[in-house]
């Protein structure tokens, strides 16, 4: 089952912070060409927590990388706000990432020689200005990191490191934040903590979050889940539960 209409849901009349329009990504040429994305169109609405799921090779990471400006499409458009990413050169994309888009990786999110606070304000430091002090305070408290500001990453647990990563993504007041398997390396308790915080960021700080995950219980924290297979969005689920997600995943490929 395939769908190519823009899938938009969430609060009616919500503003689309980021959009993919007929996105194609093809690696290689001719006989050995691999299609990672096959005409995906999707809107990400302000204030919404979206999870993207699918088997490996489904294109979920590719979709997110392209929307976040880390990779380029072979065909189609990605818009963040009104800006068409395909028009931007490397420098402009980098500045976009610095000022407007937050990113959280699965692991190795932090610069080992900087302490927690320095890592959190890294985007602002790169830009050469101070971060918004009020937002910074709020983010630090929301993430529960007040006691750990002076610690180096080697002195933090896995869960704490991820929280710092989330705080970094949020502290510069991004329009949208992407997370690539943020709980992949964590035990279940830390995972739960992180996901709570991410949810809190969406609810209390009005953030827009997009998360790629393969874990159904993680997806349950989202407002909606997008299912990808073979480079296409094949289904969408709102107010997901872990069981429903697991069921749907099992049925992919049928």
């Amino acid at each position, binding site marked *: 089952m395939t769908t190519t209409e823009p899938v938009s849901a969430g609060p009616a009349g919500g503003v689309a912070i980021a959009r993919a329009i007929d996105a194609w990504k093809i690696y290689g040429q001719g006989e050995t060409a691999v299609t990672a994305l096959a005409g995906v169109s999707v809107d990400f609405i302000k204030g919404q927590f979206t999870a993207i799921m699918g088997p490996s090779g489904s294109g979920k990471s590719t979709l997110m990388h392209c929307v976040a400006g880390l990779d380029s499409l072979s065909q189609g458009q990605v818009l963040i706000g009104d800006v068409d990413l395909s028009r931007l050169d*490397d420098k402009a994309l*980098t500045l976009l*990432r610095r000022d407007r888009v937050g*990113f959280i990786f699965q692991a190795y999110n932090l610069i080992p*020689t900087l302490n927690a606070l320095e890592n959190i304000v890294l*985007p602002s430091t*790169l830009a050469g200005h101070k971060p918004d002090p009020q937002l910074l305070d709020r983010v630090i408290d929301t993430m529960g990191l007040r006691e750990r500001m002076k610690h180096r990453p080697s002195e933090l647990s896995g869960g704490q490191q991820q929280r710092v990563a989330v705080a970094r993504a949020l502290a510069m007041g991004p329009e949208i934040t992407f997370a690539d398997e943020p709980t992949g390396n964590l035990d279940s308790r830390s995972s739960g903590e992180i996901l709570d915080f991410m949810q809190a960021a969406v609810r209390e700080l009005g953030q827009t979050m997009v998360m790629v995950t393969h874990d159904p219980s993680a997806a349950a924290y989202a407002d909606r889940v997008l299912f990808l297979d073979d480079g296409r969005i094949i289904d969408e689920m709102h107010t997901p539960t872990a069981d429903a997600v697991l069921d749907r995943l099992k049925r992919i490929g049928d």
Partner: protein
Amino acid sequence: MTKIALKNLLGHKLRLLITTVAIVLGVGFMAGTFVLTDTLAKTFDELFENVNEGTDALIRQKSAFEGTTQDGSSIRGDLDPALLDVIRDTPGVDAADVVVFTVASVATEDGEAVNDVGGTPQFGFNASTDDRFNPYDIDEGQAPTGADEFLIDRGTAEKGKLAVGDTVKVFSLTEPFEAEITGIVSFDGEDSLAGASATIMDTEGALQRFTPNGKVQQIVAAAEPGESQQQLVDNIRAVLPDNVEAITGEASTAESQDQLQEGLQIFNTVLAGFAGVALLAGTFLIYNTFGIIIAQRTRELALLRALGARRSQVRWSVLGEAAVIGLVASILGLFAGIGLAIGLKALFGAVGFDLPSTAAVLKPRTVVVSLVVGLLTTTLSALAPAWRASRVAPVEAMRAAAVETPKVSKLRIGVGILLLVLGAGLLVSGASGKTLPPLAFGAFLLFLASVVLGPPLARLVTGLVGRAVPGITGRLARDNVARNPKRSANTATSLVIGLGVVTIFTVFSTSFGASINAAVESGFRADFQVSSGGFGLGGISPAFSEQARELDGVEAVSGIRRGSVQIKEKTEPKTRAIFGVDSQDVDKVLDLGIEEGSLTDLGPDNIAVDRVTIDENGWKMGDVLDVTYADGTLHQHEIAAIYEDGGVVAQNNDGHFVVDMSVYEASQPSASQVDNRVLVKAADGVEVDSVRSELDGLGKDFGSPEVQDLGEVQDAQTAQINQQLAFMVVLLAMAILIGFIGIFNTLLLSVLERTREIGLLRAVGMVRGQVARMVLAESVLVSLLGSILGFVIGLSVGSALMLAIRDELPTARISLPIPVLVIYGLVALIGGTAAGLLPAFRASRLNVLEAIAAD
């Protein structure tokens, strides 16, 4: 394991290339040195053989004592030409002739000397009527006759644009004279005898013009057919007076060859020393590179161990890699060295040092040494990293990347400080005690201290200097250099070696120059010094000072000549330098610091001695010394004066004995009867400039030697020292280059290591320019680390060295060459930047996505 080792090598070609380059440079330099000296030796060997081809026996005065003249030949007196008839009548002698062999030079039609007096050797000798004794071939024209005709070598003819039929001025040991060029000669196809100029007259003319006393230097003889050289010599020996000897032509050739070999050996050793410095720098590069590679391959090595590889197998695998690199690099270096030697020989030719071309000589010794040195250097440097590799525990295959441990052990700091204190202490003690061995050892300890204290120093220097780089790029650059202080320190060490040695030489040279100039100034009473410039080969005809005395406004003139005699000292007879001066005028032009007696008292039976030698031997005024002249005769000389500083007359540290010119002329062979320099004092009230122009005018008749006042003398001295320094710095450039290659290498590997981290920075918003600046800053920081350490060590050791020679050089002082040091600092900065360019570029061009996904 061999396969794995080889696969590893090939998998990282760039790493392999860089490591190889360092060894190629060092080995190439060393191999080039050997090939060059071997080739030069062979060239000269052939040259000497050709020159002596027709000579079966050589007759000359016995050498009275050991020692050499300024151009390296033994000291012996002259022969009476009457001996020729005796030789000719000896059975077995087919032909014999005299050899007049002293110095002579010619001028162009304008009167300017063709070759700088005192630059290339300039020989004047006679043409034998028997052509087999002549080493040259007449290319144009014909043989000369009488005292107004001569032959000239093609090299000089071309340089001075002289042709057959030209009449030009000739200068030798008698008055300058005009003579006509009757022919142009070549030597076995070459334009000159290894760059020396040759002025050739017939025997009668040579005796008149080239010798002040009509004596000859040698007699040569050819044997009758069937007679061996040895038989001839035996026959001749029977008729010779006591103080004359005969040797076979072969023996004479062998003698010349050996003498040259000695000189070349020294040359070889010096150059090899410089090559050694480069290799030492290379050692640290290899050690560091392998260390980094091992650290990066921890997981892989652990996996091998987990799969069952023994510790020794891992070790041998690493050493094997090193050995292959060493072997390949040594072979490449050998070829590079041969190329270098060929290039250098061509360079010599370009500056007029014509040597007959021989194919480059590659002795087995050169091949063996190159291979062994290259191989040993590489494998020894990899020894410690290989050992560390074998220590990797199998369980580390399962762990995430090892966390760097920036803690430097207290023990290491303790040892380092101990070495520092010991080294500095020895340096100071050597300097104040004026002995070199503790100083050398102290320098070595200081260097060791810099290696041991490298890591904590790295963090210190980075913290201080790194603040100069602003912003987050500076902060991250500082952190990156400081987070692995051992690696940063090791990388910098190659540069410490190169720049440290350069600084030592520079500080010492500049200080030495300043000291010499101070010495010159303190003793200089004259208004002008007329000198031959260059390195003292040849000199100014004695007629010059005679005529200078007659000039208007000239009050005093003294020539200075340097020769050798043997003097019976407290323990035994020693060969000593003596300096001939004009005893009546010398006080007016030089201040030797007379303590007792007076130089004007020096007559044919006297001698003046310096305080140091007086004290050494327990002599006093009035003592009579036994002096053996160059011709072997023994004479008595009474001490008539004691002076403080011989450096003034000698321009170095062996000015221990001064005699009147009459004594000098009696005691030295003809060829030494040239003034090394002439000092002139203008009369009171006379315009100094007018005297200068008179001297210039007179000089035109003598090949225009340099007329200089004190300031110009000092400037010339400084220029000469700077030239030597420049030469040495060029030789050390190799080591410095290796230092920068080391930084390049480490940074490249480090960027590779930090791929994911750089990807993260880019993802979070660091633009390419910031990444590049960060990496460049790291490169410059490490370079500065090496430079600062190198400078500090260089300054200390160079200064200490200068102070340690105060006995030999009373005016020794330290003069810091600030402009030069600033230049070296700039070199460090620019080199550091250049080394970082490619790594910075690579880092900034990393594909963000691939970088993040990297492991």
